[in-house]
């Protein structure tokens, strides 16, 4: 019995004006897997996951989420698709004029039509999961970066998505807070949710991922299991990248 992939890229190209950022990527991601996307800056990794929920639209090709094209979906259909895909931004993007709880309940009420009471119950549960039950009434401005990002993860979890996308979730954090966010993400693995994480945290990737996608200049240069990728990368660019990232001067979150 073959299970259809939960995310599928079909010969996707993306250009910003004259700049071609994604040059023909085709790939399938299995349900429940944990995929880490890495690569040098400018390689197109952020653009790649942003196209999954159509924050960016491909110039050519198609992307299917659970069999439905996110590229061609519009209006009601697109919004429904998006509630099934949680997105966590590098800059958190919490709504500053709302408390943590309100940040989490907004989409539950406005998009999924839950009552205030139902939404609050879900909010308290997911906030507890990320370890911030006591901060439910606090505003983003009063939270540390790590706490804000955990609220952002709770917000993404609230709609019970099948897929969670992370766009460099720890890149905007001070080093001492990276750990608490990675811990939360680690706890989400093997719970049936598909995770796709764009990150530079190679220690995390090595221990948590099922699959590493190495992107360079808009193409997938390597697609391997972490054990293979870290011990014997096949492409020269991947080798170069790893040596820079894992050099003695770099303190990886190991």
């Amino acid at each position: 019995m073959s299970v259809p992939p939960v995310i599928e890229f079909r010969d996707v190209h993306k250009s910003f004006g004259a700049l071609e950022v994604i040059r023909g990527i085709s790939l399938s991601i299995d349900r429940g897997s944990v995929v880490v996307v890495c690569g040098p800056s400018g390689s197109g990794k952020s653009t790649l996951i942003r196209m999954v929920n159509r924050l960016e639209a491909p110039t050519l090709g198609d992307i299917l989420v659970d069999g439905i094209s996110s590229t061609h979906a519009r209006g009601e259909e697109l919004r429904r698709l998006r509630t099934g895909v949680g997105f966590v931004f590098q800059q958190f993007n919490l709504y500053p004029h709302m408390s943590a709880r309100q940040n989490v309940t907004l989409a539950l009420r406005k998009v999924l039509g839950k009552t205030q009471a139902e939404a609050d119950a879900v909010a308290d549960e997911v906030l507890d999961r990320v370890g911030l039950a006591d901060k439910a009434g606090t505003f983003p401005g009063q939270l540390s970066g790590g706490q804000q990002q955990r609220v952002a993860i709770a917000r993404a979890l609230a709609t019970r998505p099948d897929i969670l996308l992370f766009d460099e979730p720890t890149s905007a954090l001070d080093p001492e807070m990276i750990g608490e966010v990675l811990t939360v993400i680690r706890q989400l693995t093997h719970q049936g949710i598909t995770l796709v994480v764009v990150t530079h945290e190679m220690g995390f990737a090595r221990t948590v991922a099922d699959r590493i996608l190495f992107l360079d200049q808009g193409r997938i240069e390597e697609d391997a299991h972490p054990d293979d990728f870290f011990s014997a990368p096949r492409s020269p660019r991947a080798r170069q990248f790893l040596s820079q990232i894992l050099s003695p001067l770099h303190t990886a979150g190991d």
Partner: protein
Amino acid sequence: MGLSIDWSGVLTGQPLHWLLSGLVVTLAITLVASGIATAIAVGLTALRLSPVTPVRLATQAGISLIRNTPLLIQLLVWYFVGFGLLPPALKAWMTGDHPWSVLPGQVSLFAPEFAASAWGVGLFIGVFLSEELQAGLNAVAPGQREAAASQGLSRWDTLASILLPQALRNAYQPVVGQYLNLMKLTSITCSIGLAEITYQARQVESFNSHAFEAFAVATLLYLAIGFILERLLLAGRRA
């Protein structure tokens, strides 16, 4: 120094009556025009975000027209031309007998002067308000829109729940300033015959030549209204 000041000349009898009536009219027109301005500002802001290009362009053109012509001319246009453009049924209703619409001093809310003034000043400030809201919107981080989109929020919900509240917070001082402006600009409506404070001050002046006293009272009234209005609006910031 040839100034003999006689407060009783303006604070008793007919002059006092006029000035108080002027005060009521100024308050009434400020209130009504503010309502109109707010509605227009929200409407314009929504129109400016329309995905339909001709709608956006037409809105920008209209805004530019209102911003680049004097309020006085706009009032004259609405007064002389506007009333005639209304549908006959509405006109008939407005000129009918409505005792509740007559303010102290025999000023009817539906008199051409009042209606043209409320609409003219309301439209004028509505445009400037929408400019301030737009500036406030531009200052909202683009990530906010993306976060809302990624959660599947509709365009309307994004605007109402995420963008406008932050735009208003960003632009609160200028927005308050525009409402205060509106109150001060109501003084211009005396030119089309609305019997508000400035009109009545001139009335008193031509009645008994007490220019200093009449204008002093008018000045104090405007300062007082402005002070109270500003306190009220700034207190709203807590909300």
